[in-house]
């Protein structure tokens, strides 16, 4: 049923960048998290927009409400929030 819900952009924020993992390992962990809620490696690859790995830890992806609820419960996730439109001032 989750596939029937409309998906849109979200940011999954996980705080500071861990000291130890290299960037590609951190990005890989983001894929794994996403794949676990999307139940598909391929869907995770298609869904993800950015892995934030250089200065902090998080990623952005196309998600629906079920995915968001599942990600919010995962350890290390500080917040999951909609990707909002900002404007020039």
């Amino acid at each position: 049923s989750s596939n029937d819900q409309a998906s849109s952009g979200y940011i999954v924020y996980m705080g500071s960048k861990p000291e130890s993992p290299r960037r590609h390992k951190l990005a890989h962990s983001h894929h794994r998290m996403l794949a676990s809620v999307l139940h598909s490696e391929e869907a995770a690859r298609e869904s993800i927009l950015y892995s934030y790995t250089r200065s902090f830890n998080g990623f952005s992806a196309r998600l629906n409400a079920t995915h968001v609820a599942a990600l919010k419960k995962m350890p290390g996730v500080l917040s999951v929030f909609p990707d909002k439109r900002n404007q020039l001032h």
Partner: protein
Amino acid sequence: TTHSWKFLGLEDANGEIPENSLWRKANFGSGVTIGSLDTGVWPESASFDDSSFDPVPNTWKGTCVNTNSFNPSDCNKKLIGARFYIKAYELSKGPLNTTATGDFRSPRDKDGHGTHTSSTASGRFVEGANILGFANGTAKGGAPKARLAVYKVCWPGGCWEADILAAMDDAIADGVDILTLSIGGKVPLPDFFQDGIALGAFHAIQKGITVVCSAGNDGPKVGSVVNLPPWILTVAASSIDRSFSASVILGNNKTYLGSSLSEFKLEDRLYPIVASSDVGYRSSIGSLLCTVGSLDPKKTEGKIVVCLRGVTTRLSKGTAVKQAGGAGLVLANSDADGGELIADPHVLPATNVDAQSGKEIYAYLKNTKSSVGYITPAKTLLGVEPSPKMASFSSQGPNTLTPDILKPDITGPGMNILAAFTRATAPAGDGRLVEFNVESGTSMSCPHLAGIVALLKALHPDWSPAAIKSAIMTTAITYDNTGNKILDGSNKVAGPFNYGAGHVNVNAAADPGLVYDAAIEDYIFFLCGLGYSSVAMETLTGYEVHCPDAKLSLSDFNYPSVTLSNLKGSTTVTRTVTNVGGDGQAEYKVAINPPPGVSVSITPSILKFSSTGEKKSFTLTFTAERSSKGAYVFGDFSWSDGKHQVRSPIVVKAT
């Protein structure tokens, strides 16, 4: 920009740069890199020339992307980074249509906004800068010798947060010293952890990077200020002592001062003048606002047309009048626009008048059978009084998320600012390309402050972002060039909800005497005080954090302003100042200007320092003598050693 740095005191009356100018003290920002998140850059602009720059240091980890419309050779020793972020935009809007939008799928700036803000912050000296002959002078950025890295995150229709976060992730790691974002949401957000700019900025200050953001353009609405975290420098907008004057003269001999950058002139005679709603195809909101195609050429031909400004694009109104054969345009402010005059490069003789003038002009048209008028040719005026004056559009406090932190923090020049522009867009929409353009907004004041921060960073490389922010805030002024209190857009006395600590006072900020410093731990305890757990704070920071058991008072956060949004009876808050005066030994005495109905005592009233870097704490006790009945009241206090004046605003609501 031309003239704004002179207005800010970096040049003397003759245009010379005196020895005590922060420009000279800070070697014009040399050694500092500013990261700008915006619409990209027009790299060919003379403002980004790199002559006399040293090679890019090896510590720089940024890059210039290689795409169809931008390649590494577009960068140089001045413009050292250029990246773009479009995935979130394209998820929402679909693939960028470069043909339809004219935008570039690269860091190249189509809109012009990013080139304008970047050059305001750090553009080189460019002689003979002007737009259509107006605002002529030598264009200068705040930190002309600082390097620049641009991160394009804004596209036609907006700037998506996931793109902004990606840019911040890169910019921090690339090695910028300052981040400037003339960007924000439409409304304040309810939680820092739902705010991408707030989160990215937090990681920036962890690395000692000062983050400067615009306060927003949703004034004069109360509580409209955005970019609210205490770790961001939030910038309001105000005028400089320059205007672009073009008056309306009516047949009844009344003259109304207006503002314009139109190079077009009427013949030296009176013209029929009409309200746009009387020459539309039908009575409609479209003709009142002069939307394109709403005016009947048979009724408009050869006349000056008065259009209501409203929320529609200003420049299209001139196009509408011109297409219908009109001779000129008077753009009348609505009440919401107030007294704020915007100068635009119109496509015909035109001027923008304030709301009161607009009402009187409309009354003249209604009550006069054969109404006539004239628009004088536009000209640049300097030494305008009073200035600075707050822009009506500048978003206002109170801070709706954490009311005990005053926002905005500061105001700077943001009205009718000339700076470099893209060659991909004609500002008037009629094909006339310009090297420089005049724009208004908190977008324009934000890079002024970013440039000033770069100068302070160059002069004091060891200062924290909080110390730099404190230096800027505690030296700010609250009076204008007539010696009176700064006014708001409606000509009433402005206050801290308009300008925070006041108007930036650049040279004084170089030597503030004392600073209200804050380390990452202080921000963490601030977040603990908001109710976030130790576990959340550990995830945020990456190290062990113990939030205090007792809930911290947010008013105790060591901010350069003091706000109590809910004073009941009496309360005491603490502040700590650090001596950054070069002399080491110093004695500061306090002076208090309490808000009406509130008594304020400060203990101790004298602070004696024996060395530079020494910290001293003091307490402020506030007692409500009467309820302010839901209204905020304002005062201030300042420490002085006879040489420095360290002033903090006080904002209180007593219940």
